[in-house]
Each structure stands twice: as C-alpha cells, then as structure tokens.
C-alpha cells in the first residue's frame, strides 16, 4: 500500500487517465518521439554513463589505454585466485570436447546443438543450472515473424537503437536467425502466446517500428530456459552439468589456443582442471557489480566473471564503456527496490507519468533514452515522487492497460508483475507502480564475429558476455534472441572447430604474466577476480568476523 502522502499525486494520475486513454485509443502518438538531437541531448546530460567518473582508463591488458566503465576496469585490474605452479596440467581432472562456462540460456542452447552434432560437453555453472538472467526475462523475445516486418526492418531498429555502433554482421546474424529460433524453440516445446488460429501475439517494445515482441505471458525467460534445461538433462551421457563449480581461469595451450579452464568447487573449495578442445564463455553480465551504486535487476551470480578470465587470457573487449539501465526498476516498496518491471507493460500501453499526472516522454524510446528522460524528470525537473526511504521515482500507469486491452488483461499477461506487487497490497490493475532506472545489462563484452569466435583460437562467446551485437544500447527482447541465436551458433561453430583442433601442451602461464603486468604497472589492489558472488554482509558484521579475510568483494 502506498503511504498517505502519495495520494494527492495518485489522484492526479487517475484524473488524467481518461484523457490519456482517449488519445492512446485514437492511434495517434501519445507523445512526440525524440529526434536524433533530442536523444543526444538527454543522453549527454542525464545518462549515468556520461558522468566523468563513470569511466576510467584501463592500464593493462588487450584494451590498455581505453576508457572502460570504472567498476569493470577495477575487476580487470585484479589479482587471480591462483598461480600456475599450483597445478599439474599434464593430468587434467576432466576431459571433454567442449567446455561451456555458464548454465544460462546461451550455455544450454550451445550444449544442445553440440550434442545434436555429436560433440560431448561439460557445462560448468557457478550456481544451479539455469540460475541466470535468462530465467528472469519477462517481456519477450524479438523476432521478425509478421508479413509487414521483414527481418531487415528488425536490423534497422536494432542498429539504430545501438547508436549505429553494432557490428553489422552480428546484427544480421541476430535478426536473420530470429524466425528460425522461434520455430526451434517451439519444436522443443516452448509455449508462445498465440491467438486460437495460431497467429503469434506480437507487441511493441522500446525502439521498435514494428510489433515484434513474442512472449510467454510475463514468464518468457522462465518458459524458454526451463525448456532448454530440460532438454539438456535429457542427454546426461553427452552433456555433463557441474553445478556450484564455476570456472575461474581459462587454460591455454603452448600455441595460445584456448584449451579448457580451472574449476573451483564453491562448497568444498577445491580446484579441478578441465581439458577441452574448444571453450564457450556464456557467463552473462555484471549487474551485481552495482555500477554507480545502482540497484540491479540481475540475478545473484551476475558478476562479469567471463570478462575477467577472457581478458587475462588475451581476449579483446568491445564497448565496455556502456551500461544499460532499465527504465523501469521498482522503487517501492523498499523490499523490491531495483526489481525488473517488464517493458512489456509499456508495450501493452502503460505510460510513465510524473507526480502531476502528466505523461512526459514517449513511452517507448530506446532504453537509454527512456531512462535518461526518467532521470531528468526526477533530478532536474523535480517532478518525481519521493519514497519513505529516500528514493525517488515516477509512476508507471498500469491501470491504463486494462482500459486499452480489456479487463483481465493484466492477470492473463502479467501474472508475475501482479504477484510481485499484490504481496505488498498494491493491485497494479487499479494503481500504478513507482519506478526508476535500474542497472540491467552489459551492452558490451568480449568481441566476437558472426561465428562467435574471439581473437583467441578455440574460445567462443555467446550471450550477454559478448560484445558487438547491441552496439552501445540493446533493445528490449533482443537479449533473449541473442542468447538463442549466438548460443546455437557457438554450439555449431565450436563443434565444427573441434573436428580439426589439435591441442598442445596445457599452460596457465598467462595468469602469471598478467600478475606481472599488474606489478609492472604498479597497480596496488586487494581485489581478486572473478568476483563470483557479491557480498551483502553489513559493515558491523564484517568487523566482528575477525578471522575472515575480505579481499574486494570476496570473503
């Protein structure tokens, strides 16, 4: 329930709703979309990425001298957990064709394709299989499946949304594979939202010029990923799943090819080695680094581990200066601060409204533009609503959806959102939600080509850990598509690769070399990375943990 002092503002939202409904129903634009100059202006002034302290120069490694997101530069300029002399690599503990690092959507898709093509794989995952951001995507997946929406239009939307920085061959792969992915997933048993005659339900997302968002109610990620996980588990002979066993460094061979990785058992704290002919990084993003102190929509293990191990092995990163803040993270109640409120809400007609009950921005700008407009409305124009704990947000008017789409629509299409709020006495069919941008997505990552190859032979990357697909801003629904398209491609091209790959003598020398680079650059830090898990232990508890050693975010 909202505190009493908000009721005046809530009333204004209610009062303006009819008028906004009439306009929305008329089919005219509910608010003028921004042109190129307006977009640039709001981004420059209000997007958190554009603040001076948000980026710093990285001093070592393949991207040396480039400006990266500060928190990313921090974890890259960190010590390894291990040194090469701790390991005898002549007798690896595990051997397989393909080592897949990460048990989310990309990793599962890669394993399934590799299995179909006859390759064996190990999926190493930090938490459980499926503990990933893929599980949490609510709103949908973009794919060009309607007659009025050729895949080339999807290409144009995606590359424009990414400020034309996307790698063209990756955007082509993303959009061209889209329809095939829809079919592949359905053949595996994904239940898409459809009309009775089989017509796929499509909605708009931010930055789309055609209705292209396919969905599974608002459990899209959960339905897709559970299907993929189930398929993975149907092949226990070919796919080995190692849970609570993250890879913490890559292993190379003497020719510089990627040849596996070092496993860490989170529970017994033992290390193991894996020798593989090819390695796929599908570790996802970094929301739990809480960049700029923001709350995040991300799952517990999203700490950018893949970036760190790949960078230490010499992989180039792309666009690691760009962070995605989802426009609609929850800010009230406090217990769900930062939680994702799906963009599908705006796709279905929900509107962002300020404290005076006014719509102040086109509801479906690309995410970075929309987020910046929310921040401007709150911080510069002071038209936000303060919460009792001192946060600020704007209204996301969901009751309007019921007027536009008919009564019962929210319960049918947004069961997760309805559940999330009714627990706290807020019925989103009758009252709006209070929102503010929340740290959501790693726009950049390890640079890949359309075969998911990196500059290290034998190292492939798929999903959020990769860079180039989305340029400097991803559109809604393109990440679910991304992990399917590039997860499948990684499985395929890694399997092709292993047919000819010859692995030489295994080595971890690059880890020692990186450590030396740190020393030579006179970088003094107590940080250890990969981070693995964030720490939410209160300061005064930490102080009493007299014999616990805290290094950076690690206990």
């Amino acid at each position: 329930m909202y505190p009493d002092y908000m009721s005046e503002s809530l009333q204004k939202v209610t009062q303006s709703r009819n008028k906004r409904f009439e306009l929305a129903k008329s089919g005219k634009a509910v608010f003028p979309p921004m042109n190129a100059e307006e977009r640039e202006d709001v981004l420059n002034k209000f997007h958190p990425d554009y603040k001076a302290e948000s980026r710093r120069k990285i001093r070592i490694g393949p991207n040396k001298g480039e400006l990266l997101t500060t928190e990313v530069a921090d974890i890259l300029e960190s010590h390894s957990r291990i040194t090469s002399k701790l390991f005898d690599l002549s007798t690896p503990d595990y051997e397989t064709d393909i080592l897949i690092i990460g048990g989310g959507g990309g990793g599962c898709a890669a394993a399934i394709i590799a299995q179909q093509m006859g390759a064996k794989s190990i999926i190493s995952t930090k938490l459980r299989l499926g503990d990933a951001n893929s599980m949490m995507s609510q709103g949908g997946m973009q794919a060009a499946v309607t007659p009025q929406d050729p895949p080339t239009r999807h290409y144009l939307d995606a590359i424009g949304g990414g400020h034309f920085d996307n790698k063209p061959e990756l955007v082509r792969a993303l959009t061209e594979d889209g329809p095939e992915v829809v079919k592949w997933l359905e053949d595996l048993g994904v239940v898409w939202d459809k009309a009775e005659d089989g017509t796929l339900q499509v909605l708009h997302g931010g930055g789309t010029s055609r209705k292209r968002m396919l969905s599974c109610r608002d459990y899209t990620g959960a339905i897709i990923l559970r299907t993929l996980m189930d398929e993975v588990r149907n092949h226990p002979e070919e796919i080995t799943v190692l849970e609570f066993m993250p890879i913490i460094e890559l292993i190379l061979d003497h020719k510089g090819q990627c040849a596996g990785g070092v496993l860490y058992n989170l529970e017994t704290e033992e290390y193991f080695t894996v020798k593989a002919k090819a390695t796929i990084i599908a570790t996802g993003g970094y929301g739990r680094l809480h960049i700029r102190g923001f709350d995040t929509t991300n799952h517990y293990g999203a700490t950018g581990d893949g970036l760190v191990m790949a960078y230490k092995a010499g992989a180039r990163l792309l666009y690691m200066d760009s962070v995605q803040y989802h426009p609609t993270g929850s800010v009230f109640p406090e217990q769900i601060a930062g939680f994702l409120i799906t963009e599908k809400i705006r796709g279905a007609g929900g509107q962002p409204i300020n404290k005076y009950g006014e719509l102040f921005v086109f509801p479906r700008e690309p995410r970075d533009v929309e987020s910046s407009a929310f921040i401007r409305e709150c911080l510069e124009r002071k038209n936000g609503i303060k919460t009792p704990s001192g946060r600020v947000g704007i209204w996301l008017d969901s009751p309007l959806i019921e007027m536009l789409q008919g009564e019962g629509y929210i319960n049918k299409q947004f069961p997760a959102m309805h559940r999330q709020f009714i627990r706290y006495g807020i019925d989103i069919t009758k009252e709006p939600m209070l929102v503010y941008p929340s740290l959501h997505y790693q726009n950049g990552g390890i640079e890949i080509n359309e075969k998911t190859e990196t500059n290290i032979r034998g190292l492939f990357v798929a999903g959020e850990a990769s860079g180039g697909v989305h340029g400097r801003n991803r559109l809604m629904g393109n990440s679910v598509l991304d992990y399917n398209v590039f997860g499948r491609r990684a499985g395929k091209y890694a399997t092709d690769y292993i047919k000819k790959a010859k692995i030489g003598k295994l080595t971890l020398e690059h880890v020692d070399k990186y450590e030396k680079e740190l020393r030579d650059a006179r970088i003094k830090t107590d940080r250890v990375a990969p981070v693995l898990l964030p720490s939410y232990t209160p300061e005064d508890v930490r102080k009493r943990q007299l014999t616990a050693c805290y290094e950076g975010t690690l206990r």
Partner: protein
Amino acid sequence: MATKKTAKKKPAAPKKKKTKKGTSQELMATVFIMGKAHKVPAEATIMGAIEYAGYQLKRGAGCREGFCGACATVYRLPGDYKIYTGLACTTLVKDGMWLAQLPSFPGQKAIYDIDKIKPNVETIQMLYPEVFRCVACNTCTKSCPQDLEVMDYIQAAMRGDIATVMDLSFDCISCGMCAIRCPAEIVQYNVGLLARRLYGKYLSTKSKALEKRLGEMKRNKYAKEYKELMKTNKKDLKKKYYERDTE
C-alpha cells in the same frame, strides 16, 4: 534514492539504519535462522534477513526476484502448528519466525526424446507413473508460493488433459515445495514442465505467417537487402532509421 551506496550493501535494511544492533528507533524482529536467534529489520525479506545476520549465501539464492525457485524456505510461527512455505526473496519476516532454506531436494526427472512421445495420458503413465498415486489431499496447492492450483493440474495430468496442465502450471518456478510435501511422492513441477513442452510442440496451432517467413529465409529472400544495409554508411543509415514508419 537509487544511487546511494548503501543500497547495495544492505538491500533489505532501510537506509536510516547505521549500525546493526544500534539504538535506532527502527522496528526489529527476532527470527530463528536454522534455530539460532537473530535480530533483523522487521520489514526485511527472509533473504535480506539472512544476509543481514551475516550469512554469505551460496545455495538458497538465485534471481532474488521470484522467478528461479532457488530460495525455497520452510518456516513455522510461534503458537501455530502449521508448516509454512515461501520464497526467501519475496516473503517478509515475522517476529518469532523459525526458518530453514532448502539447499537442494532430490526429484525424479524422466529422460525422454521429445520427438518420440505423444501428448496423451500414456506418456504421463510411462514417464511419471507415480502421478496416479495422487490422493487429492491438496497439500501441493497449499504449499505453492505462486498460488498455483497444483493438485488440479496433477488431476488433469491423470486425465491426459495436457492443455489444462500447461495452463495451470505455466507460472511454476520449480521451487520444489509441492514435491517435498507430497505424500504420494510426486514431482509436480517436472510433470508440469513435461506437459508444457508437449503442448508447445504438439498441441498449439502452428503460425502460418511463421512458416511463410521461414520459406522466405530459406530462399534467401532478404540477402540482397541485408548486403545493401550493411554497406550503407552511418549518415545514410541514420537518415533511413529516423525516417522509418511505425506500425
């Protein structure tokens, strides 16, 4: 507001609070985490409370937003014989609550070839015969933190009504609470998952527009247009983008 550093350190603890057991006027509650008493903020979620007490979670935390089912928790309340179930990430603590998380719970999962089974009751009989041991006690439904009609979909599975199982189990997060409480030892969430896959693959009406598009893609209908787009310089591409019409 969202940019304050404290937001990431103590997600469940309101900001005014500086020290853990200080004299702040904030309301506190006593919870028994695996039997041990801890004072935690009265409005914390169970997960927030566990972390506030100083535990570093390895198991028992995943998406932290109610989608992954990693944080299944059982608890009892003072003066109440009932066993309660909930997700640690979305359930608020109550004073006197006695709780434990489920780190993992074994549950049978049938191995099958999705291409070789049919969407009917025989498939259920073959893969999950224990479904027919259901005694309709409704404990599964009562234990579901998503408030799903679990028993109803198990009954539907017994009738081979795959569409109903799909519909009623759609929002299942596989937390496993139904399975640990089930006297018939059924793993409900895997039955639901099987039925959803059967429905999606065999029973949902196929989209004609999708078939048509796949045909076009096979014929490389858009190859030329792609080539041109990829060659277009940034300035012209920008123009094309900002001039495009919207559906």
